[in-house]
């Protein structure tokens, strides 16, 4: 389309729109700048600049509560994204490239439910259910957090995997079957390698989503099971020190790296 007409620029122009867009991009990034800058503040206050130092990064690193919360976040996110990715891969295989069958709409609705129901509603419902189970069994471990995280990570892992599968036709698998490959070797040697970029993207999305979760974790966790986000939420009620800025900056950096990775992974798919 753009090739056919060499100067579509005037036609596409809308007065004021580029200005508003630039304002929007500025607004998206501007608030993050003071957040990062003040993480290097030498003073005790998040408002008063007293020179550059790394003391709050050191403080955060030395803070046992932060360290424990960080490890907990990573462990929960690893388990949840691992399980969610496996379950989502199976579900994607069962719902794509197939004849329509009865119940498929219900399956889609169930898989996407965590995207549609407000987090606070799911959180409260889980609180009620898990309170009953905790009382009945006396078990207060991490399984609750991992199951809850796995559930809401499934749709995020499912969507990229399904998108990848839908872009693959069945010719290669049919060819493998024609050459007398049994279903499992066909899957392992043909389907799975082709799906891998989608699976990686899905796993990483699930990981980021689990790592970032505040609401469901806040309601599901037992005493002493703070993850990094719920620890930070608790700290925001108290006197805020630049330690929170330091933790935020590190998390920000991790998110940016992961999102950049996902971006390039999904770009290779089209190339």
């Amino acid at each position, binding site marked *: *389309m*753009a090739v056919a007409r060499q100067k579509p620029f005037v*036609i*596409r122009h*809308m*007065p*004021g*729109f*580029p200005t*508003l*867009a630039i*304002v*929007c*991009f500025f*607004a*998206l*990034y*501007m*608030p*993050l700048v*003071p*957040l990062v800058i*003040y993480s290097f503040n030498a003073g005790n206050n998040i408002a008063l600049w007293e020179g550059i130092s790394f003391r709050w990064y050191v403080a955060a690193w030395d803070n046992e509560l932060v360290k424990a919360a960080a490890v907990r976040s990573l462990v929960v996110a690893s388990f949840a994204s691992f399980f969610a990715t496996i379950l*989502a891969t*199976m*579900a994607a295989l069962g719902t794509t490239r*197939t*004849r329509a*069958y009865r119940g498929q709409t219900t399956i889609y609705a*169930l898989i996407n*439910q*965590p995207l*549609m*129901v*407000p*987090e*606070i*509603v*799911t959180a*409260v*419902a*889980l*609180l*009620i*259910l898990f309170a009953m189970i905790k009382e009945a069994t006396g078990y207060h471990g991490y399984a609750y957090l991992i*199951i809850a995280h796995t*559930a809401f990570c*499934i749709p995020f892992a499912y969507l990229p995997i399904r998108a990848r599968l839908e872009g693959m036709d069945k010719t290669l698998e049919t060819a493998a079957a024609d050459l007398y490959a049994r279903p499992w070797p066909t899957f392992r040697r043909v389907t799975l390698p082709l799906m891998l970029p989608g699976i990686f993207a899905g796993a990483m999305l699930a990981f980021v989503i689990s790592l*970032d979760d*505040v*609401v469901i974790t806040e*309601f599901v966790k037992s005493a002493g099971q703070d993850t990094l*986000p719920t620890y*930070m*939420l608790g700290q*925001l009620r108290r006197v805020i020190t630049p330690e*929170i800025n330091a933790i*935020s900056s590190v998390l*920000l950096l991790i998110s940016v790296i992961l*999102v950049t990775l996902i971006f390039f992974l999904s770009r290779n798919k089209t190339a």
Partner: protein
Amino acid sequence: MASVSPYSNAPVLDLEALARRREVKTNVLLTVPALTVLVAAASGPLLIMLIFSFLTPGDYGGVKWELSFDAWFQVVLHRDIFDDTISLADAHLSILWRSVKLSFLTTLVAFILGFPTAYFIATRPPETRNIWLFLVTIPFWTNLLIRTFAILEIIRNQGVINSALLGMGLIDAPLDMLYTDIAILLGMTYVYIPLMILPIYASMERLDFRLVEAGYDLYASRWKVLKRIILPLVKPGVIAGSILVFIPSLGAYVTPRVLGGGKNLMLGNLIELQFGQGRNWPLGAALSLTLLVIVMFALIFYVRSAQRETH
């Protein structure tokens, strides 16, 4: 069957039906593990919550297993403890109203800023388009709490905005922006605007600009082209974006908690209160289900209008 399979004419139809049935069975089995987890930790709990909303609150949180409709009654009505007169529950209604009002305003502001941004991205050359999109996605995947905290830092009394305004001499005393409805509105718009931009962009990308050109050829003004050609064509994206912003705003918990302080509650905070200090789990359950019903209506509205677009 208009199948291209070389076997379609062979007399193996029974086998084919059998294979088809087997394929469906395998497919359903493949989805079972995921569905089990989802039913256990997403759908099932909602049903238990429905039951809890019809029970009597326990003394220290939890419930007594006695049937009661009080929780649903309390969502909008209030019974005076002295003379049993029934009145509207002003506290709940004002919180409900604030939630709806702020979510609506968030959606509106996000649209006003997000629409031109999506248009801007869609009209960039294809090589740079992905980079602009990427710039929208990064904040979206950044922790919501961190982004809310970033807003808290810039609007507080000694924050960047107040310091700048004071420095320029535009104000004498810092503006009290934190812990107001405006703060919540600002925070939610900031947090959810990518959800408006991305679907509008997806519609805009498929926009046929020859139609726009035709409009100009027929002497339409820019405003008229925008209103009569572009907006109707990208309407599905606008509706999708609005729903995607409206629903999480309505259920927002973190943003109003951090930016609204203890006073400016939204529905999400009212729900939490019933499970904390309020110790009224049935009421909390009833309020959650009320929120869910409003969200479902919004979703039905969306599905309806999406269907109308495709017909």
